């Protein structure tokens, strides 16, 4: 493609600016204000001028940038395309993408932590060093054990980053730079990771669209809330129960929709989410309606309570350990619980992928008809995918209830479902690392923009569109095989 001549580009930018003018008039140019005399129309034409100017300049720059890219792509196309090289590049890209976490986190801390930004970078560097060290160590130990490590550079890079990220996550609450806000935010990120991992089973692995995932979250939360309210059960008993109840609803949901395909699933699952919310909102007798359920007990550690005044029959953590009471202990404990849950979920799902159950999910996503021709029961696969996905949602819900101590229907609107789905799709369908990155992005981006609180959702929406247009397959769109054939004797 030849570069476009300047006049053409100017014309293009002028057209875009013209369109911007049309679009800007009724919303930016004119606005209505309620007064005693009814609505009065006011205007702010200077804003329109700015908007039009910005669009003109932006379009011009975008065009230039695109030309440059096209020229480079052209040169590349002329080179020989090497498949193995392509794969290697993809793996390295993966490593870099994970490194992105290492980028967004310090930026965040630099803005919010002030001076502690230096500390956090130090911590990250140390984590990374340990990660790489362990990996190099592995390179020596494995051959010694006669388990030859054939991993490529990219894979090892990824692994090193993962170890580093895990280390960073585990140590986060104990670090000097962590305060209430940071730990709390970390907990939120982890909840969304857990939700993303769950939905990733249904959408990413099994390829079954679900726009009502928040229902499982809600069911998990209310299961705990109500079980503790009516039967006095504590968190550790309710956690598995909530998961099971949510999984049960997953089965229930999957039954009417077994025959539906693709987009029809979207509306039915959306309906399921809305029905759940509306029922919770209106079944006052059971759920307390819009007032929600409060006084949900906090989780304890083997009978130790993190409250200042422990409930009947419990001993408080600060008395036993003698380190004095601090509200932060509870937050740290909650953070570690959800971190453990996330690790467990990631491990289980990763494991399932390489088992017949999980492989059948992926096969189902790829081609349902071929599945049937190989003796796989698609019904069983679909039901299990919704059940396992739902169960993860249930765990997340139960934890959410324990953390807040209060649940109300407000937390479970459609926007939550959309956000969780966005985490799965933005991350790259089926990719667990992708879920982690996207969850960080989705939770932290609005926080970063708190100064522009009013505009952050606008930016957020735009960012979603931009990422999709830029990488339609999600940030990490390469699939990691579950098993590899080593070429012995080949």
């Amino acid at each position: 493609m030849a570069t476009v001549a300047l006049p053409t580009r100017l014309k293009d930018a002028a057209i875009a600016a013209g369109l911007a003018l049309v679009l800007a008039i009724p919303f930016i140019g004119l606005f209505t204000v309620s007064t005693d005399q009814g609505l009065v129309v006011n205007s702010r034409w200077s804003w329109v001028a700015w908007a039009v100017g910005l669009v003109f300049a932006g379009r011009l720059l975008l065009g230039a940038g695109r030309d440059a890219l096209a020229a480079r792509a052209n040169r590349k196309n002329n080179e020989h395309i090497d498949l193995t090289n392509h794969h290697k590049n993809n793996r390295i890209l993966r490593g870099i993408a994970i490194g992105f976490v290492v980028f967004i986190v310090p930026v965040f801390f630099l803005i919010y932590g002030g001076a502690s930004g230096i500390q956090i970078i130090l911590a990250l560097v140390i984590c990374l060093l340990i990660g790489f060290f362990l990996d190099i160590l592995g390179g020596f130990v494995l051959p010694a054990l006669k388990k030859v490590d054939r991993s490529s550079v990219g894979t090892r890079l990824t692994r090193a980053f993962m170890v580093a990220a895990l280390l960073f996550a585990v140590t986060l609450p104990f670090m000097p730079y962590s305060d209430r806000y940071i730990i709390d935010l970390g907990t939120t990120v982890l909840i969304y990771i857990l939700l993303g991992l769950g939905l990733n089973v249904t959408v990413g692995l099994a390829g079954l669209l679900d726009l009502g995932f928040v229902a499982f979250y809600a069911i998990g939360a209310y299961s705990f809330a109500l079980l503790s309210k009516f039967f006095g059960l504590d968190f550790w008993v309710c956690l598995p129960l909530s998961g099971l109840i949510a999984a049960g609803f997953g089965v229930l949901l999957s039954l009417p929709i077994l025959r539906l395909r693709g987009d029809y699933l979207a509306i039915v699952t959306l309906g399921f989410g809305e029905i759940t919310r509306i029922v919770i909102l209106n079944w006052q007798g059971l759920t307390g309606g819009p007032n929600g359920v409060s006084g949900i007990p906090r989780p304890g550690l083997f009978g130790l309570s993190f409250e200042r005044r422990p409930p009947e029959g419990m001993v408080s953590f600060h008395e036993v350990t003698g380190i004095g009471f601090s509200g932060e202990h509870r937050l740290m404990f909650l953070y570690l619980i959800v971190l453990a849950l996330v690790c467990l979920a990631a491990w289980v799902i990763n494991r399932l992928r390489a088992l017949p159950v999980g492989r059948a999910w992926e096969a189902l996503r790829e081609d349902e008809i071929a599945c049937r021709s190989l003796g796989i029961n698609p019904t069983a696969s679909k039901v299990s995918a919704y059940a396992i996905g739902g169960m993860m949602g249930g765990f997340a819900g139960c934890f959410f209830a324990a953390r807040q101590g209060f649940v109300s229907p407000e937390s479970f609107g459609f926007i939550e479902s959309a956000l969780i789905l966005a985490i799965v799709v933005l991350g790259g369908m089926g990719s667990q690392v992708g879920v982690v990155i996207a969850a960080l992005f989705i939770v932290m981006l609005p926080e970063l923009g708190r100064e522009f609180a009013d505009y952050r959702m606008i930016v957020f929406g735009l960012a979603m569109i931009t990422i999709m247009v830029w990488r339609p397959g999600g940030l990490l769109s390469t699939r990691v095989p579950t098993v590899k054939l080593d070429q012995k004797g080949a």
Partner: protein
Amino acid sequence: MDASALGTFLQYLINGLTLGAIYGLIAIGYTMVYGIIRMINFAHGEIYMIGAFVAVTTFSLLASLGVTAVPLALLLVLLVSIFFTAAYGWTVERIAYRPLRGAPKLAPLISAIGMSIFLQNYVMQTQGSRPKPLAPVMNGGITLWNGDGFTLSISYIQLFIILLTLVLMLGFTQLIGRTALGRAQRACEQDRTMAGLLGINVDRTISLTFVMGATLAAVAGVLVTMYYGVIDFYIGFLAGMKAFTAAVLGGIGSLPGAMLGGLLIGLIEAFFTGYISGAYKDVASFSVLIAVLVFRPTGLLGRPDIEKV
């Protein structure tokens, strides 16, 4: 059934038809877009909301300019709202969906959700988050029946909504069935590549489909503004969801199906609210939808797709 019960029934019927007509108009936008590019245009509810906001601004502007003749004001508002809303519909497709042709199936959906979030907040920021009350434009109505202990009436605005919808539906059916544009649209639905090879400008046809969908959404926005007299930036979400339900219920991809689905959802809501409970009316519509899909997986008027092996 005694007379007053019958009267109540008929009153719910009229209310339901009015509501259903509006849902139907929005549902057509979903169904046309789905038919041609197989994607759920999640931002369509927002397009309708934009139509309603333009209507409010224009009504207020006309009032301040002293245009008081209702028919003239109405015509102007409809035209202005259609113009701006169509521009938004066109731009949404151009920015958020066109670059994603041929992308994995869920990419346009996420892009659409992003667009929906953007438009909602954009309108909230530029127009304020408080609801906009509008002075009634059309007052009065016709009493169809009075006596025997009940009155049955239809307001002018209800009559206007039902009639206008009817006219638009007929016009659209003609447009799709008889004109070259309609033919191009149907060709693109069947096989976009082939249509392109035969000289149909596929991009333009898709753009026009969005413009047409936005046009009907704009009309729905104007009608809702007049009917309820108050709007806010959040109305698009709920209406969009209902209309989407309607489109699927009727069989997504089918124009008459969208209208039928809209009417059914409107009637279910009106009757369920009237006879059972307003709180659970959405549960009722969704349950009907799920029940229908269990037995007819492609909706009421949708073409059953035969599984090709």
